[in-house]
């Protein structure tokens, strides 16, 4: 699997990113989740948001399983009447981003070190108080995991992460 920098996915062999275009309604989302819970498939993350046309939504699902399971997931999703297309991006070049908000304990002595780390990860401090920093970071899952790993020793209070959102890449070089 391709491992490249800056948010172009790094994949382990059984992790898959599915991009599902659906009619914009909650019944569609519920049916999709129902397929996963009813048939015992895994959802590692899921995100739902509108597409270019307002009556369509794009759902990005990251999941894992062997070839046969992923094939079944894809087929089962396709069976849902509201689903327009299902693309397994894993077989394509694609860009993927996740957003995380992390609240970390920052004493007077550790604050500047944390801010330096944030700079390396191109993360942004978005809230500050005498004892805490809240930081926003975007990137692929590995980058976010790495950032969280770096902050962990300082004492993380809370984390809020979106699921992955992904799009197929058009440009063949690296970004």
């Amino acid at each position: 699997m391709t491992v490249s920098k800056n948010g172009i996915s790094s994949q382990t062999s059984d992790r898959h990113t599915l991009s599902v275009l659906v009619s914009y309604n909650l019944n569609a989302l519920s049916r999709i989740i129902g397929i996963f819970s009813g048939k015992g498939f895994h959802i590692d993350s899921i995100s739902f948001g509108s597409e270019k046309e307002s009556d369509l939504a794009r759902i990005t699902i990251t999941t894992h399983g062997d070839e046969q399971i992923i094939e079944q997931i894809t087929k089962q999703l396709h069976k849902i009447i509201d689903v327009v297309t299902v693309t397994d991006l894993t077989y394509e070049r694609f860009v993927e981003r996740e957003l995380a908000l992390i609240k970390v304990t920052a004493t007077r002595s550790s604050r500047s070190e944390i801010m330096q780390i944030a700079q390396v990860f191109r993360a942004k401090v978005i809230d500050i108080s005498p004892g805490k920093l809240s930081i926003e970071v975007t990137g692929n899952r590995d980058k976010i995991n790495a950032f969280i790993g770096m902050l962990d020793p300082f004492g993380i209070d809370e984390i809020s992460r979106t699921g992955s959102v992904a799009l197929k890449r058009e440009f063949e070089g690296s970004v």
Partner: protein
Amino acid sequence: MAQPKTEPAEHKNKNQATNTPDTAVLNGAEILINTLKDVNVDTIFGYPGGAVLPIYDSLFDEHDINHVLIRHEQAGAHAADGYARATGKAGVVLVTSGPGGTNTVTGIATAAMDSIPMVVFTGQVPTDMIGNDAFQEADIVGITRPITKHNYLVKDVSNLEQVIREAFHVATSGRPGPVLVDLPKDMIKSEAHYSGLKKVSIPSYKPTREGHSTQVSKAAQMLSNAKKPLIYAGGGVILGEAWEELTAMAERLNIPVTTTLMGLGGFPESKPQSLGMLGMHGTYYANMATTECDVLLAAGARFDDRVTGRLDGFSPHSKKIHIDIDPSNIGKNVPVEVPIVGDVKNVLSAIDQQASKPDTTDWWNTIEDWKKNHPLKVPKSEGLIKPQRMIERISEVTNGEAIVVTDVGQHQMWAAQHYTFNHPRSFLSSGGLGTMGYGFPAAMGAAFGCPDRPIVCITGDGGFQMTAYELATAVEYEVPVKIAIMNNECLGMVRQWQELFYNKRYSHSILKKGNPDFVKLAESYGAVGYRASNDEEMDDILEKAMKINDRPVVMDFRVEARENCYPMVPSGAALNEMVEGPE
């Protein structure tokens, strides 16, 4: 008559504006009824209640649609299901909100598992009360999401007509299935334009109908070169109306055919190529042929566990071709060499056009030996009726021409084994969900769809009691269904498993003490009741029953309770490890 109330002004404009269809302003209930007529619905099975009263009010003057008042909504859904299986048209159900909807759940799930086209209309509390725990509110769209092919909550009356048309399109096309439309009370009371637009197009829903040509050629090639080919035909052959193509191909290429429970009737059992049913209670020769074949063509079948037995022992030497309209069925349980997504009817005839007759002389010799040495057995009665004989007798009396509807249990398997099915849409049974209580209401539904065919419901004393109250409906509408109760005074199939696998500990499976007098039960509803305890009485009451045309007939057949259903593949065993009879 609830005729469209066409506004005179609009009538005048009829031929002027090309883009504006001839529309009329109607309320939701009238739009519903008009659209139902437009999609050729002639019968609906329903039960009224507050939320759907505006619809019932419109039905009061309606003569083109036959509304059948069932006595319980579960039975309404089963009746619609039986109607659909017997006719090929979508069955239609109309019930009220809350308990009306939840009572249909078993019937919807039954239809979903067997891919039966059905449209269920449920009443709902008015839109502004949804979510408030209003009286008789239930989230029926949420409840039925996993057991419907698709469902809708109508939130804007101007979408109602479109939604209804889509519902019928989705229910009957591709892999068929139940669709639910939830109708808030304000939606059926408020008004909108009714356009009579016939076209339905759902951009995200386009089932594949033609098989891929390369795959078709591969399949034809494989069959032509096979030494030991076998066709394994499922319910898809019946749903996809592919029985003629299947029969033509099997006869021309002289390939044996085994059907699943759902496929019974999809290939005439009187033809020499028929091996009957395969699977847990399948014939010896069908199961052996499945195990030994070198090319297995699965047509509209889904490799259900009741069919395959232990998966790693299922047809281990064969290359497999799988035709199915639903791509998610292919490769789900068993890997296949040649997957073909498409309409069974189209694909079978395409394969038939390209395949040449394989040399199957040796294969047929082997099969004939199996057939001769391991036939299905009908034991001789010693007093009480033998269940196998009861089925055989019903088959003889009806000449194999009846629509046979079963419940679930031993009688179901014996009916599948011993009735000779020669026509499609003649064996209706809950194969997927295995719903007890299905038989009698489904038989009634079939009778509404096919009033000219004899209809026999073969049921157990357990199963019949789950929906026996529908005798009231059958009497009211003069439905001449023949109900043959295989009365063994126990939950026979449960008893069989307890005898074989639980050391004869018959825990809660004996019904003897609480059973009603079925003859009196029938009579109290105004139906005819008969009882037979030996072969002679059996012949006598069957003959009498077949002559009754204006009422249901309940026949209480007292059968040998200790009889077990064989052959049997114990669960977890492979098909060729079947047990042929008691030690």
